[in-house]
């Protein structure tokens, strides 16, 4: 039941954070092993998804510090994405695809704390309050990390486009 309900969510969070499909698979397995050990500590009055994502976040940050995978390259953005319907205008679609590729690679340039906040808020679509609960931080700190991350990614986008198109 836990596997059916949460494996995709945990795997995607690991994939978005680490950028590597293989790494995300290994992390997901480790996280599920840990989850079964920690289930006894779950407080039934709390939100299970938030509790699980906190466990995922803690495990990934620890693994990141142990292995320093930021030096490794992220997988190509399109490698594991299958036929997502884009906009009708092919030119707009091309631009959007290009932006996504740049941002996907750009995530590796964010510090792990900022990257985790961006993954939760911007990619997973959590609200600030939810992200703060998962990260175990005051909402002001989360907002500040997200502001920093957004700005950094916008600058990466600007610099890459200048490089590619000479704009």
């Amino acid at each position: 039941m836990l596997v059916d309900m949460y494996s995709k969510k945990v795997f995607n969070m690991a994939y978005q954070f680490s950028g590597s499909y293989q790494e995300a698979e290994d992390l997901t397995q480790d996280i599920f092993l840990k989850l079964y050990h920690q289930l006894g500590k779950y407080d039934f009055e709390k939100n299970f998804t938030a509790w699980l994502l906190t466990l995922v976040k803690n495990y990934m940050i620890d693994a990141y510090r142990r292995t320093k995978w930021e030096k490794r390259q992220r997988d190509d953005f399109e490698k594991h994405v299958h036929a997502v319907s884009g906009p009708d205008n092919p030119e707009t679609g091309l631009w959007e695809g290009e932006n996504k590729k740049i941002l996907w690679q750009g995530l590796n340039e964010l510090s792990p704390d900022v990257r985790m906040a961006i993954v939760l808020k911007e990619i997973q679509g959590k609200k600030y309050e939810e992200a703060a609960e998962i990260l175990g931080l005051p909402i002001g700190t989360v907002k500040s990390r997200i502001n920093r991350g957004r700005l950094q990614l916008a600058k990466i986008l600007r610099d890459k486009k200048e490089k590619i198109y000479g704009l």
Partner: protein
Amino acid sequence: MACEKIQGLLSPYLDGELTPEAKAEVDAHLSSCPECAELLSLLRIATDSLASFPEVEPSRDLKAKLYAIQARKKKLRSSLDFLVKPSLQPVFAAATVLLIIFSFYMFGPYKKDIDKSVNRQIHHGYSQLEKLYAKAGSVTDSLGATAENILVSLKKINPLGKNEE
């Protein structure tokens, strides 16, 4: 310096979280600074693009491994279920009490005294046993002698009044 300050406000500007005064200040700056205006536009593109990142499907192999972990944990849990049976609670309570007494003996300050006293009791018991054994031996001897006397006496008695010859 003005650009740096304004750029720090672009993200809350995008979220609509600025006070009217701060928003007016950002708007005024953006109308005269193409660099910051471009950055705001890129910030919008970045947040929209990140929000539309597609979810990726985990492999079947991973799911199979996760199911195997789940099954293994269930099996282990059910094999340990007998430990939480209520009927075993008195046994655990008794074992706990014994453990407490044993730890008092092992790590308490009276271990030597207890050892001495136990040794003395064992020696005493042993000597009592030896005495008992010796007494039992003498009783056996005296019983043997009594039996012999009885036999001799029986031989001497002649119920028919005849001579032994």
